[in-house]
C-alpha cells in the first residue's frame, strides 16, 4: 500500500501517467496485484474497469505473478530466421512449461519476446529485463538453465551470509 502511494506520488498523481505507474507496480511485484489496481483506481479517480482495460491491453503487464527469473526468447524476424523458435522449444522441453507459462515452483517464466533489437547477434534471449545473450544455441539450453540456477543459489547464499 505504502509502495503504491509512493509510485502515485512519483508521477505527480497524474492520470495520464497511469501506464508509467503500472510499469512501476509490475517491477515492484512482478505482476499487477488486484489490490494495487484498486488503490490506483481510488487515488486517480479512474474506474477499475478502465484500469483493467489498460492493464490487459498491453503485453508488458500481467495480472498473474511471473516467475522469479523471466526468460524471454526473442522472436523478431532475424532471430526467428536463425532458429529462435528452436530455442523456445528447447526451453519448453527443459522447463516443462509452454511459452507464456510459469514453472510450478515459480522459479522461471518462459515467454517469447517481440524484437528486442539485437538482430546483429541473433538468435538472442533476455534474462529478466536487460541481460541479453546473443548467438544462443538450442542444444545448450540445459546448461544455460542450470547456470542460472547455480548463480541464483550463489546469490541467495551470499545474501544470507551478509
Amino acid at each position: 500500500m505504502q509502495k503504491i502511494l509512493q509510485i502515485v506520488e512519483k508521477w505527480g498523481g497524474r492520470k495520464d501517467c497511469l501506464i508509467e505507474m503500472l510499469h512501476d507496480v509490475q517491477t515492484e511485484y512482478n505482476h499487477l496485484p488486484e489490490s494495487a489496481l484498486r488503490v490506483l483506481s481510488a487515488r486517480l479517480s479512474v474506474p477499475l474497469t478502465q484500469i483493467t482495460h489498460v492493464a490487459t491491453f498491453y503485453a508488458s503487464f500481467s495480472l498473474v505473478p511471473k516467475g522469479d527469473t523471466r526468460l524471454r526468447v526473442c522472436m523478431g524476424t532475424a532471430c526467428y530466421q536463425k532458429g529462435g523458435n528452436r530455442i523456445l522449444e528447447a526451453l519448453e522441453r527443459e522447463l516443462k512449461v509452454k511459452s507464456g507459462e510459469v514453472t510450478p515452483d515459480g522459479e522461471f517464466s518462459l515467454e517469447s519476446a517481440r524484437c528486442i533489437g539485437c538482430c546483429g547477434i541473433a538468435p538472442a534471449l533476455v534474462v529478466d529485463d536487460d541481460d541479453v545473450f546473443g548467438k544462443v544455441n538450442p542444444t545448450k539450453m540445459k546448461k544455460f538453465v542450470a547456470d542460472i540456477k547455480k548463480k541464483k543459489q550463489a546469490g541467495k547464499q551470499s545474501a544470507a551470509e551478509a
Partner: protein
Amino acid sequence: MEPRLSVLICSGTGCASNKSMEVMDALRKEIATRGLEQEVEVVQTGCQGFCAVGPIVYVQPDDVFYQQVGVKDVPRLVEEHFLKGRPYKDKLYVPPMGGMPIPKLMDIPFFKSQVLVALRNKGLIDPEKIEDYIARDGYQALARVLTEMKPEQVIECVTKSGLRGRGGGGFPTGVKWASARKASGDIKYVLCNGDEGDPGAFMDRSIMEGDPHSVLEGMCIAAFAVGSSQGYVYVRKEYPLAVQRIEVAIEQAREFGLLGKDILGAGFDFDVEVRRGAGAFVCGESTALMASIEGNPGEPRAKYIHTVDAGLWNRPSCLNNVETFANVPMILQRGWEWFSSIGTGDVSQDPWGGSKGTKVFSIAGDVNNTGLIEVPMGTTLREIVFDIAGGLPEGKRFKAVQTGGPSGGFLPESLLNLPVDFDRLVEAGSMMGSGGMVVLGHDKCMVDSAKFFIDFTADESCGKCTPCRIGSKIMLQSLEKISEGKATEEDVEQLERVAHEVANLSLCGLGKSAPNPVLTALRYFRDEVMAHVHEKRCPAGECKALITYSIDAGKCTGCTLCAKNCPTDCITGERKAAHAIVTDRCIKCGSCKIVCNFDAVVVQ
C-alpha cells in the same frame, strides 16, 4: 595535456552482451598499470553498427578498428598499439571470404560505402556526455535557428531539403510542420516516435542509445518551427538503455539551458518528457501512440481529422520518427541544398517527387556483416546485401530480402538491382518501413516466413476493426493449412482474396499493410507456395509437417553426438557405426542437424 589516443569501446546492446564492458574495465586497468592514463583515454560509445564482429574497439586518430576483442586480448593490444605504436594484428578485421587483415576502418568494405548523416556521431562520442555532442558541433544548428531564423524559414529549409519521414510512411517532414504551424491552438505538442516495433529493426534504438542529443536537438528545432513548448519521446519499454540515455540527455540539456525556459536566452521555451510503451506494436501508429501517452489503451482512430490539428489531448501534435529528428540539425547546419543533393528524384516542385538524404538500415539474417548501416537513398539492394553486408555466409545462396518488417514484403533475386527509396519499394509490393532488412538464404521457406509475419500481425492487431482482427486470423489459418500440406488451390485463392480485403478495409496502417508479406510471397515465390499445395512438399525443408529427418549412413561416423543431444532419444546406433533416426518419435527439433559435424543429417 590532450591524450594522444582515444580508445572507443562500443556499449551497444550487441557488444555489451558480448562483454564489451568487461573489456573496457580491463583496458582502463591495463592502461593505468602501464602508466598511460595521461596519454590514452578510454571512451564508452553507443552502437558502432558492426554488431556481427563485436565487441568492437576503435582507436582514434589512428583509425584502427579491432574486432571480437576479449578481456584476454587486452594486455597484448595495449602493449602493441599503445606502447609500440603498431596495430595489434591478431584482432584486426579479416574479410569473411579470406584475405589480408584490414587495419583501417575506412578501408573496410562494411564502412567504405556508408554516408553518415543521422549516424554522424556513431561510435565517436560518449552518449552520456553532452560535451562530446557539443564538441562535434552539436546544438549549433539550434543556436542558429533560435538567433537568426524565423519559424517559416526553418520550415522552408526542411521542406526544400526533401526530408521525408523515416518512420515508414515517408510523409514530407516540412509539409507536416507547416500544417502543424498553421493549426489553431495555444498549446501544441512535438512528439518523437521511438516505438520501433518492427521486428528486425534496431536503428532508432541505436540512435537513442548512441546519440540521444541529436534527437532532442531535432525536436527542439521542430518545436520552434511549429510553435510548441512541450514534447514527449515515446520509447518502447523493451529498450531500457534507450530510455535511460534519453533521460540523462534531457537532464543535461536542461542544465546547459538547451531545454526548459528561455533556451539560449532567445525567449523560447521547450521541455521534453519520456513515456514508456508497454509492448504493443500498434502503438507505433500515430493515433494509437497518442492514446497511449494519454494513459489509454493504444487503439487507433480514423484519421479524417489529422493529428496535426487534433492529436494528443485533441491538440495540434507534430509526430516524427527518431531518425527523422536526428537528420534535422544536419539539414539546418549544412543547408537544404546539400541534403537534397543526396538521394533520388526531384523534390523542387513536389515534396513527394523523390527520396532525399540517406537511410539507416539494420541488416540481419543470412549475411556475413550483420549490423547497422547508413547509405544514400537509391543505393541498390545488391550493393547493400553484397558489398556492404558482405553477402551470404558460405554455403548459402540468396533467396530474398525482406524489407519493412510486418508491413513490408519479400523481394526476390530478380529485384536486387532495385534502387532503395520510398517509392520504388512500394512499387515492388514492399515498403521502407522503419528500415529493417532481413536476408533469407535458399533454405528459408516463404510460406513459413509469411506465416511468421501474419502470426505477428494477428497477435498485435488491436481488435478494434474487423477486417484486421478477423482477416489476419483467416490468413494465418490458410497459411497454416498450406504449411501442413492440407491446402487446396481454393485455399490459396481465398488467402489472396482476404489479403486484398484486409489491405483495403482496415482502419489503420497495421491492417492496411499486413498482407504485404503474403502478397509478395505469392507474387514472387508462387511456385514454392504451390509445391506445398500440389506436391505436399516444402522445397526449403522447413515446414515440419512436410519433412522427415534421416541420417546419411555414408557420411555418419558414429560419433554419437546427435544421439546425446536428441531430446527424445530417438537416435539409435553403436559408437563408430552409422546411426539412424526412429522417425515416429522424432519431433523435428533439428538438434541433431545443428550438432552434426559431418553434414550427415538429411532433411527431406
